[in-house]
C-alpha cells in the first residue's frame, strides 16, 4: 500500500509506514475492506482486500473527488481580475 501510494503520487505522498495500519484497521471496522492471514514462502502475511461495500464506497468517493478537484481546478484556472477599490 505504502509503495503504491509513494510510486503513484510520484513521491509526493510519502507517509510513515506505521501510520497506514490504523487507517486500514478503521476501514476494516467499517466493513469496507477485509483481511486474512496467508502463508507466503513460509511466512505469515496479512492481506487486505476490498469488500463489495468497499468497492461501492470507492466508486462513490472517487466520483465526489473528481467533482471536487474539477471544481477547484476550474476556479484556479480562471483568469485573474484586477482588484477593485
Amino acid at each position: 500500500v505504502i509503495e503504491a501510494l509513494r510510486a503513484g503520487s510520484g513521491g509526493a505522498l510519502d507517509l510513515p509506514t506505521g501510520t497506514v495500519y490504523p487507517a486500514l484497521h478503521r476501514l476494516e471496522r467499517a466493513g469496507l475492506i477485509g483481511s486474512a492471514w496467508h502463508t507466503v514462502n513460509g511466512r505469515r502475511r496479512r492481506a487486505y482486500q476490498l469488500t463489495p461495500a468497499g468497492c461501492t464506497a470507492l466508486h462513490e468517493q472517487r466520483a465526489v473527488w473528481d467533482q471536487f478537484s474539477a471544481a477547484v481546478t476550474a476556479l484556479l484556472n480562471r483568469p485573474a481580475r484586477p482588484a477593485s477599490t
Partner: protein
Amino acid sequence: MSGRADPAGPTRYLARVASSLRGPRQYRDRILAELRDGLDQSVAAGIGRGLSEEGAVAAAIEDFGQPDAVAAGFATELAIATARHTLFWYLLTGPLVGVWWLLSLQPYPWRAGLVVVIAAIPVLPLIVVAIATATGTVATTGRLIRWLPEASARHAIAGSALVAALAVFGDLVMIGQYVHSGSPARPLGVIAVAASTIRVVCSSAVLLHLVVRGRLTVSAM
C-alpha cells in the same frame, strides 16, 4: 530475508511500540504481528535494493516512524475496541444476571403475562438506558458507520463507562431491595444476589480500567 536474520532491531522497536499499546490483548497481538510482518517485508525490500542488513533494518524502522507515534496512531482503534469489547460483554451477560432476578420476583413469569413481568423489574428505566447506550455505541463504532455518524473513541469509552456505572447502580439497588425486603432467603434470590455481586465487582474493575483508558486516549489523541 526472514525475521530470524534480524532479531535485534525490529524486536526492540516492536517492544517499544508494545509498551505504549493499551487495549484488548488479542487485538494488540494482531497489531504487533502485522507490524512485524511489515517490518520484515520492508527489510527484505531494502536488502533487495542493495542495502546491507543493518542498513535495511535502519531504513525500515525509519520508514515506519517513531514507536510512540505508531502506537499513538492505534490509540483510537484500541480505545474503540476496548469499548466495544466491554459493551458486548454487558449485552451478553446482562440477561444472565437479569433472568435470576426476574425468576426471583416472578417465579412463574409465563403465568403472569409480559406486561406484569416487565413492570415488576424495579430498575427498568436503568436497563432501558443501558441497552440504548450500549446498542447505540456499538452501532456507531462498527459497520453501520457507513450510514450513521461515527462515535469518537472518547464517546465510545464514555458510553461503555456509563453502561458499567448503570450496571453497578442497578445491581446495588436490586441487592439492597432484596436484603431489606425481609423476605426469607430462597435459592433463586440467593443466586440473583450472587450474580449481581459478581457483576458489581467486575463492573467496578471495568470502570476503573475505562477511566484510566479514557485518560490515556485523551492524552494520546
